[in-house]
C-alpha cells in the first residue's frame, strides 16, 4: 500500500469543488485507494449524470430520486461537498414531485459539477506521479 501520510496537501491541485484534505482523511492517506475511487468516479459519474438528466426530462420522479441519492453518496464520499448538497436537494425535490423546481435544482447541480471531471483528472495525475 502506498502511503502519502505527512505529504503536504498544498502539493496537490487546490480545486474549488473537492475538499482534498477531507478526501485524504477519508481514505486514510492511502494513495492506491484514492486512485481506485477516482477511477470508479470517472467511469460511473457521466452515466449517472445522464440518467439524472433523462429522469428530469421525462418527469420520472422516482428515477430522479434514486439517481440523485446515488450521486449524493458518491460525491459526499469524495468530499465534493457543495455538489453533494445540491444532489441532496434534488433528491428531496424529486420525492416531493415538483417538476419546475427540479429543473432549476438540476441546473444548479450541473453548475456545481461543471469542471469536476477535469479536476478529478488532475488529482489522478498527481496521485499517480
Amino acid at each position: 500500500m502506498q502511503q502519502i501520510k505527512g505529504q503536504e496537501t498544498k502539493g496537490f491541485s487546490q480545486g474549488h469543488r473537492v475538499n482534498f484534505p477531507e478526501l485524504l482523511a477519508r481514505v486514510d492517506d492511502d494513495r492506491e485507494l484514492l486512485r481506485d475511487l477516482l477511477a470508479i468516479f470517472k467511469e460511473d459519474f457521466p452515466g449517472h449524470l445522464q440518467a439524472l438528466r433523462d429522469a428530469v426530462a421525462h418527469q420520472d420522479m422516482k428515477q430522479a430520486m434514486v439517481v440523485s441519492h446515488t450521486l449524493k453518496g458518491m460525491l459526499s464520499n469524495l468530499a465534493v461537498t457543495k455538489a453533494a448538497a445540491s444532489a441532496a436537494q434534488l433528491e428531496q425535490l424529486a420525492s416531493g414531485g415538483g417538476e419546475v423546481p427540479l429543473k432549476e435544482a438540476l441546473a444548479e447541480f450541473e453548475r456545481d459539477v461543471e469542471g469536476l471531471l477535469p479536476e478529478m483528472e488532475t488529482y489522478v495525475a498527481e496521485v499517480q506521479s
Partner: protein
Amino acid sequence: LKILIADDEALSRRLLEKTLTRAGYEVTAVENGRLAVEQLSRPDGPRLALLDWVMPELDGPGVCREVRKLQEKQEQAYVFMVLLTSKESKEDIVAGLESGSDDYLTKPFNVEELKARLRTGERILNLEDKLVEAREQMRFKATHDALTSIWNRGVIMDLLGRELSRSRRDLHGGLAGGRGSL
C-alpha cells in the same frame, strides 16, 4: 472476523472494503439486498454486516427483517447489523432500528466512528457466544449425572415414558390394522 458489506454504489463499496480490510476484517462485498440475505443466512456466513439503506432488489431494512425471520426459524447465530444511511430524520432512524438492525451510521461515515461501532458489535457477538455456551452447559448439567456424565434419572424416565407411549400407539395401530384386513 468476517464482515459483509452490502452497497449498490461501487465507490462506496470499494471505500468500505479497503477500510475494513485494513482494520483486519475478512470482507465479503455484495451489491444488493438479496445477495446480502443469501450470504448472512449461510451457516458459516459473516456475523457482522454493514448494509446500505437504499439498494436494488431488497433495501437495508428489508435485509434486517429477512435475516431476523430466518434466525427465529433456524436458530442461527446472531448477526449484528448496522444500517448505513444518509437519512437522518428521527422517523427514519426509528424505522431502521424497528426493522431489526442493531445500529445505524450516517453517510459519509467517519472511519474511527465506523470502527468503534463495529467493535461494539463484536462485544455483543462475544457476549451472545458466551450466553449460548452457558446455556448449553446448563442444559448438559440438567440432563446428565455429575459423577458419571451419563443421562440422569429424570431424562431416562422421560425417555422411557416416551418410548412406552410410542410402543402403545404402534401396538394399537397394528391391532386396528389387523382387524381391518380380516
